[in-house]
């Protein structure tokens, strides 16, 4: 009799002790800058945001920021569930820019229209527009991105290939890259070309748009799929062909691809500015060049990254907005958000200060990166379409890209994707 009683008592005591540990972010509503605790949710390692949080807390001693990381893979779904339950333990959250319309349409993002003028002045046109849904601004851009062509200089030299120029006017075509890649393969390199996010719409959209294929979403309500245009089919046929011919390797996905470049197994690699930091320690000579376009096609580069917004269910909106404004509109604050992560600040002033540092990361290899990135963001960047159906669109298109990469017929697979998107969207219209 004695033992079970002790166990039961122990369990109850433990439960009570644990209840004592319970606590949610305390919040208080006050005017002006606000005060109290702001809880911020994002998909990055806590170390990434530690500098910006420290800088903010030093500037606003009345406000503290508690950061919670949610794994990137499950970020969108976890956030969707918590926001729809009016979870007031989230004050500020990071918004993946193409998902903004869908999140805003559900009423999870606070209207920030009163900051429009300041936001417009602080960032590029593409980065400003991406936060507007249905005429209202719902978030502020924090990070930006672009893509460029990396090449292994040692490999190109050995194969007798002249490296591509850094000048955007002398931008290489995809056809040129494929030819040079094949030449490098003939000289003994495993593969010629690899795109970093080999199965992602973000990465492939510029190829399609370069051939005039459009974003894939049209209509006044941006709920009409259009992924079987000539540009789409031609771009995807070319892309599938690079794997068919062995120019690009199959079977490597996600962010494992940059290792293929550092292992010197590919001559060309299309990647983001974060790779400059990643390749800095490489023991071979490499270089950068503008993102390629198709022969006779338009020069198009990917853009977009993360914005931050305020949860409508937040009970500490003043302090939340103060934090958000500090990170997005204050150049020093925005710069602090990129201290440990190699990513372009969305704030123009912060970017101007940051890009030379980014360029220096790769030494001689990445010389000219700052000017190239600035040029691409201002001239060739095309954002992903703003649609409340983007989330479904992206997952269906990514699956189609993966299949085409693995040998599916482009026209057939895109027709199927078109139907799948229409079916998925029928509930949204």
């Amino acid at each position: 009799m004695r033992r079970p009683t002790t166990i039961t008592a122990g369990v109850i005591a433990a439960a009570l002790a644990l209840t004592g540990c319970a606590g949610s972010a305390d919040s208080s509503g006050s005017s002006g800058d606000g005060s109290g605790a702001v809880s911020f949710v994002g998909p990055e390692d806590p170390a990434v945001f530690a500098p910006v949080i420290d800088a903010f807390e030093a500037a606003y001693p009345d406000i503290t920021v508690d950061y919670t990381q949610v794994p990137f893979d499950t970020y969108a779904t976890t956030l969707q569930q918590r926001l729809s339950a009016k979870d007031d333990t989230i004050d500020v959250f990071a918004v993946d820019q193409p998902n903004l319309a869908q999140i805003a349409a559900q009423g999870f993002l606070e209207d920030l229209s009163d900051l429009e003028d300041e936001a417009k002045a602080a960032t590029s046109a593409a980065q400003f527009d991406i936060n507007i849904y249905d005429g209202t601004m719902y978030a502020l851009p924090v990070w930006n991105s672009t893509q460029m062509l990396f090449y292994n200089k040692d490999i190109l030299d050995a194969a007798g290939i002249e490296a591509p120029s850094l000048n955007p006017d002398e931008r290489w075509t995809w056809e040129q890259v494929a030819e040079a890649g094949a030449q490098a393969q003939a000289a003994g390199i495993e593969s010629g070309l690899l795109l970093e996010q080999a199965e992602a719409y973000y990465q492939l959209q510029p190829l399609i748009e370069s051939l005039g294929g459009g974003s894939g979403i049209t209509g006044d309500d941006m709920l009409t799929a259009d992924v079987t245009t000539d540009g789409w089919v031609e771009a995807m046929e070319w892309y599938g062909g690079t794997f068919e011919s062995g120019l690009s390797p199959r079977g490597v996905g996600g962010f494992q691809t940059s290792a293929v470049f550092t292992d010197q197994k590919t001559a060309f690699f299309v990647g983001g500015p974060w790779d400059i930091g990643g390749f800095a320690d490489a023991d071979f000579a490499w270089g950068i060049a503008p993102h390629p376009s198709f022969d006779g096609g338009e020069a198009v580069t990917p853009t977009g990254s993360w914005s931050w917004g305020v949860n409508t269910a937040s009970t500490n909106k003043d302090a939340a907005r103060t934090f958000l404004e500090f990170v997005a509109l204050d150049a020093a604050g925005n710069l602090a958000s990129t201290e440990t992560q190699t990513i372009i600040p969305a704030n123009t002033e912060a970017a101007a200060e940051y890009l030379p540092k980014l360029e220096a990361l790769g030494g001689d290899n990445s010389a000219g990166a700052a000017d190239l990135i600035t040029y691409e963001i201002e001239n060739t960047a095309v954002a992903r379409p703003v649609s409340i159906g983007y989330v479904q669109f992206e997952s269906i298109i990514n699956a189609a890209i993966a299949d085409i990469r693995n040998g599916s017929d482009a026209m057939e697979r895109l027709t199927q994707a078109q139907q799948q998107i229409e079916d998925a969207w029928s509930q949204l219209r």
Partner: protein
Amino acid sequence: MTVSAPRRSSVQRRSSQRHSGRRRPSTRRSVLFIGTTLLAAVAGIAFFAPLWWSFVNSLRPGSETFRYLNPLQWQTFFTLTPTLDNYTALLDTDLSRAILNSLIVSVVTVLAGLAVCATAAFGLSAFRFRGQGLLFSVVILTFLIPFDAIAIPLSDMFRDWNLQNTFVGLILPGIGNGMAIFLLRTFFLAIPEELVEAARLDGLGWWGVFTRIYLPLSRPALIGAGLMLFLFQWQAYVWPLLMGTDREHILGPVALSNLQGQFQVDYGVLFAASMVLVLIPLIIILSFQRYFIQSVTTSGMK
């Protein structure tokens, strides 16, 4: 004669079988033996290879993870320059905190869960009452519905009760486990009624019957159910995310997933963390397996 004749013939038949097929059964047996051994070896390797590959890669810098993958070579599964850097890098992450939290949550769930499930199973097996069948059907239904299917509405309720981001919120869903009740009830039903009757006649109350007869006799089932409750919490992923756990309440699988960054992934560190997370339940299961086997053998003797 009539009796011995068939006997003789059967002996003859057996001996003739032995003579004519002396080689065949032994060859067949050895072929069968080699075949099953090979099959077992292949199955063993198939299960072991991914774990071993992860282990080897946890001893390699992340940049080398995929270097030896294509084509397969001996370096794919072995390394001559093992390093513990990935494991030391884990010290800078939330993983140790997360493992401690996971252990707290899992152990409390096992203790509280066994108390609840065993008493429920006792009620469903030792007593006869109206609606017992219906009640038991409901218990069975609870484990036929996947937890993930009810997690979202359940998390809404928990949020209303202010249980988000608390250990109680993490532990509660693991306590009432229909499968554990089902297992324990089935085991309890096998306990002879005579034992209970004798104990009752000797003046033992129902609580005494439960704690002095049912529980000691059911140690293997209790350990089995306990392991199930432990693993349910040890691999909990969706629930802690829905509960909005912060750094103080982070659990192992979430911390592991957090190591996978958006822009860069250090697979070496990721594999090292996976190894640590695999090792803990492995140690627990292996150490309890001994008691489990012991309990089975002793209960068999009784």
